[in-house]
C-alpha cells in the first residue's frame, strides 16, 4: 500500500530540512491552541499532520504561511516558493478558474502563451479542462477543491501545504490528487505537509505522520506504524474508535 521511494535516505541528517518548526505556541484569546510543537519536513517528504477536528492543524499551516503570527517559537522555510491548498478552497469569486490560476502566476510576468500553456497543463491534470471560463460559484465543491489544488501547484512550489486536499472528492479523483502529490514530491523534491482525516490519503501519500492533540505532538511514526502502534492516541485515531484519550478533553 505504501510506495517505495528513495527519499527515505533523506533523514540521515546529512540533508537540510526544508521546513523547521520549533516550539510553536499559539493563543486565541484565552485558549491556548498550540503549546509546544516542533517538527521538521525534509525535501522529498510528505508529512501527514493528523488530529481531531479543532486541534489546530489549519492554524499550524497558516502560521507556516505567514498568515498568522505565533505567540512564541520559530519557523524557518528554505524556499520562497510556497503553495497552500486551503481547507475551504478560497478561490477568488469574481474571477474565472483560468484567471484564478493566472493571478498565482502574475509575479513571474510570463508571456501570454507560456501562461496559457501552464494553466491548461495544470487544469488538464485535475480534470478541469473545459471549465476554465467558469466562475467558482458555478462549480461543485469538488471542482472548487481541484481548482484550488491546481492554483497551489501552478508555480511548481518547493514547499506545499495541503489542508484536506481530498475531503469531499470522489475516490477516483482523490486517487488522482494523491498520485499527483506523490509525483510532485518526487519530481520537484518538494517538502509537503498534508492535513487530512482521510485514511486513504494519509496511507497513500504520507511518509511520516505526526498526531497533534492538546497543542502537542503525541505520536510520530510512519503510516504502517500507525496501524500497529500501541500508543493510545494514534490507535484511537487510526481505528476511529470512540473510546480513548482523544475525546476525554473534548471542549
Amino acid at each position: 500500500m505504501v510506495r517505495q521511494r528513495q527519499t527515505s535516505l533523506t533523514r540521515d541528517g546529512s540533508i537540510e530540512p526544508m521546513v523547521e518548526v520549533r516550539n510553536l505556541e499559539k493563543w486565541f484569546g484565552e485558549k491556548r491552541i498550540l503549546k509546544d510543537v516542533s517538527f521538521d519536513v525534509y525535501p522529498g517528504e510528505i508529512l501527514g499532520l493528523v488530529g481531531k477536528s479543532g486541534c489546530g492543524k489549519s492554524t499550524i499551516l497558516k502560521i507556516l504561511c505567514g498568515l498568522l503570527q505565533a505567540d512564541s517559537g520559530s519557523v524557518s522555510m528554505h524556499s520562497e516558493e510556497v503553495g497552500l491548498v486551503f481547507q475551504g478552497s478560497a478561490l477568488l469569486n469574481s474571477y474565472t478558474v483560468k484567471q484564478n490560476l493566472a493571478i498565482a502566476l502574475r509575479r513571474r510576468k510570463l508571456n501570454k502563451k507560456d501562461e496559457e500553456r501552464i494553466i491548461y497543463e495544470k487544469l488538464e491534470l485535475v480534470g478541469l479542462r473545459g471549465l476554465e471560463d467558469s466562475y467558482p460559484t458555478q462549480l461543485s465543491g469538488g471542482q472548487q477543491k481541484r481548482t484550488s489544488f491546481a492554483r497551489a501547484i501552478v508555480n511548481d512550489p518547493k514547499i506545499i501545504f495541503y489542508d484536506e486536499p481530498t475531503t469531499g472528492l470522489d475516490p477516483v479523483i482523490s486517487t488522482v490528487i494523491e498520485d499527483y502529490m506523490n509525483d510532485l514530491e518526487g519530481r520537484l523534491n518538494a517538502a509537503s505537509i498534508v492535513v487530512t482525516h482521510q485514511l486513504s490519503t494519509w496511507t497513500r501519500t504520507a511518509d511520516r505522520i505526526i498526531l497533534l492533540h492538546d497543542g502537542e505532538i503525541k505520536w510520530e511514526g510512519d503510516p504502517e506504524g500507525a496501524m500497529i502502534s500501541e500508543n493510545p492516541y494514534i490507535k484511537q485515531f487510526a481505528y476511529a474508535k470512540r473510546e480513548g484519550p482523544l475525546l476525554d478533553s473534548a471542549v
Partner: protein
Amino acid sequence: MTTSARSRNNILRPFDVMFEQFGKCCQLIGQCLILLCRTIGYILRGDIDKTETWRQCYRIGVQSWFVVAITALFTGFAMSLQISRELVMFGADTAIGGVVSLALVREIGPITAGIMVAGRVGSSVAAELTTMMITEQIDALKVMRVDPVQFLVVPRFVAAMLMMPALSVYAMALGLIAGIIIAYTAANVPVATFLDSVKQTILDRDFGTHFLKAWLNAIIIIIVSCAIGLRTRGGAEDVGIATTRTIVWAMTLLFIFNYLVTAVTYAPR
C-alpha cells in the same frame, strides 16, 4: 459575559464606552492613513492593473449614474424653487441662474455625487472585501505573494479618482437642468437669461474647488471602505456591520472635508 449583562454594565459606565469608541476611531483613522500611503506608493511606482481599473470604472459608473441622477435632479428642483421664491420677492429674477449654479458647482454637485457613491460603491466595496476576508480569499492572495493593496485597493482607488469628477460634473449638470426648468416654470425666467447669469457668476476657481472636492470624496470613500473591509475578520454578520460602518464613516468624513475645502477656498477675507 452575556450581551445584556454587558449593556447593563455599559450603561453604568458611559465614559468607558465613549473612551473605547474614541480609541477605535483613532485606530481606524490610523489604518486609513497607512492604507492611503501604501496605495499612493503603488500608484507613484506605476504599479496599476489597467484591465482591473477599467472594470472598476465601469462598476463605479454603472452602479452610480442612476441614483446620482435622481438625487441631483430633486436636490436641484428643491433648491431652485427656494432660491427662485426669495429672489423673485426682491425682483432679482435674473440672478436665479447665478445663485443656483454657484450652489451646484461649489457644494451640491460634489456632495450629492459623493453621498450616492458612498452609499452604492463604498458599501459594496466594503461588503466585497469583507467577504473576501472571511472566506480566506485575501489570505490566498497573500500566499500567492500578491499584495491585496496593490491587487484590490489600487484599481478601485484609481477608478474612483477617474469617475468621481465625472459623476460630480454630471450631478451638477442635472442640477442645473432642474434649475432651468424651475426658473422657467415657476419664475418665468427664459433659458437664455438663466444661462447668461450662470456665465457671469461662475469662475474658473469654482471648477477647481469642484474637482478638488470630487477627488477628496473619491479618496475618502475608497480608503474608508477598503480599510474597513480589509481589517474585518469573523463571520457573515460582520459583512453587514462593515457595510454600515463604511457608510457612516464615509459620509461623516465627506461632510467634514467638503466643509474644510469650502472654508479654505471661500472664507471671507
